[in-house]
């Protein structure tokens, strides 16, 4: 038997189509896998760094939760918190503490020094490491208010 009849009789078309598809699929999968090897290895090589980062993140979250749960601000400071926040939003971040105190006096916030001190202790105002300060939005969400007022 010759020609197309021979090919059809021996399932030539099916064998060829299937054969080349398998070769293509095999090499395609292999190429996809080996394209990822260096990424996986990079991740593996830096696993300690990633692990440390994850641990730090977890620890920070845990600490902020702890801080937040322990954070009990006097009622009057809580009230001034809102006003300080508005002031800082106007001043822009990062801001300097003397400037904040100056503005707060101008705006007539009472006991501004002690209030800022409370906010610093509560880590609502945090240093940015360059001599300026930032408003801590994370902590702000978790503030509990005590019934007592500061003296």
């Amino acid at each position, binding site marked *: 038997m*010759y020609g197309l009849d021979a090919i059809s009789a021996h399932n030539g078309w099916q*064998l060829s189509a299937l054969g080349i598809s398998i070769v293509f699929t095999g090499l395609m999968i292999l190429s996809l896998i080996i394209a990822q090897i*260096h990424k996986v290895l990079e991740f593996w090589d830096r696993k300690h760094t990633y692990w440390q980062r994850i641990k730090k993140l977890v620890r920070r979250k845990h600490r902020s939760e702890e801080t937040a749960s322990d954070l009990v601000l006097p009622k009057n400071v809580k009230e001034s918190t809102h006003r300080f926040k508005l002031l800082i939003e106007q001043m822009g971040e990062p801001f300097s503490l003397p400037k904040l105190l100056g503005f707060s006096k101008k705006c007539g916030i009472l006991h501004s020094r002690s209030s800022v001190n409370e906010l610093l202790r509560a880590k609502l105002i945090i240093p940015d490491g360059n001599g300026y300060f930032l408003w801590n939005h994370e902590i702000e969400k978790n503030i509990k208010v005590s019934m007592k007022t500061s003296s």
Partner: protein
Amino acid sequence: MVNLLIEFLSNTGFALAGYQNIIMILVGIVLIYLGVAKGYEPFLLIPIGFGVLMGNIPVIRDFGLGIYEKGSFLNYMYYGVMHDIYPPLIFLGVGALTDFSAMLARPSLMLLGAAAQVGIFSTFLGALALGFAPNEAASIGIIGGADGPTAIFLTAVLAPHLIGPIAIAAYSYMALVPVIQPPIMRLLTSRKERLIRMEDPREVSKKEKMIFPIIGFLLCCFIAPGALPLLGMLFFGNLLKESIVAERLARAARTSIIDSVTILLGVAVGASTQGDIFLTSKSIGIFILGASAFAVATASGVLFAKFMNLFMRQKINPLIGAAGVSAVPNSARVVQIVGQKEDPTNFLLMHAMAPNISGVIGSAIAAGILWSFLGG
């Protein structure tokens, strides 16, 4: 006394030789000439050519001298061919010699090695159309993989009676890659395409190179278990090379083992081409189909590279598609030569090694698939 002399003379090669032996001896001399004078694959063509001479010395039957006579020296050498011992050992050496970095750096180029395997399956169809049995057609088709050991490996299983012509065709065409490929490459590409410069591949880490042979072996052999002996030894050889700690074994694999086996394989394959077995109409068909397999494989690789360029942001030089036919590293060298004819400062060799090596893997997978389809 006279009777003894007459008997002696009647047993000499001069008396026993037929025209087929003479033709084959001439073929053997041509192969040796190509290897020595032209430098075409000398490591293969010289042993094969001399094997052809050895196999075509006419000897008296049942004297235990011929390659097909049990217990003869040549028969023992041929055992390694018939029982698929030599091809995997050659692959061990190839693995220990090959640096897979180019392929690992740009895995998408592996698809060019897959595309070139179209030559195998199209030739399989052609051989079926010419009246060859499916197992013979598959063995002929694998010539398109441009991989001598793979061709011998599959033929020994599917059509052992065709080992001689198929091996000679595969190795001859591998040697003639610098002659067969360039016209096809130029025909299918424009000058602008041949001038495309490719970005330097990224650096591949040692760990990547060490992990690849294990992943590659597991994946390929799960897909095509029939390729286990070939791919197993290829990746094992590569692991020896890349692991560094087994450098002595890697050195043995890429020097003494591959050299010894090449000699045994070449001589045994050459000697199996006895005139009366080799010079048949089938052999002529095999040679014609083998040439077309090479041409189709080259064209498929180049055309697929052009097809990939339709979707890729970083264009690839379509010439490197021609290296997908295996024939490591000859076809990659041909790509470099053709590319440098257009632009002497364009270095494509490194890029061409990626499809070249994936072509080796692809043809071994194709052999495994054909074996599983037709070997049962």
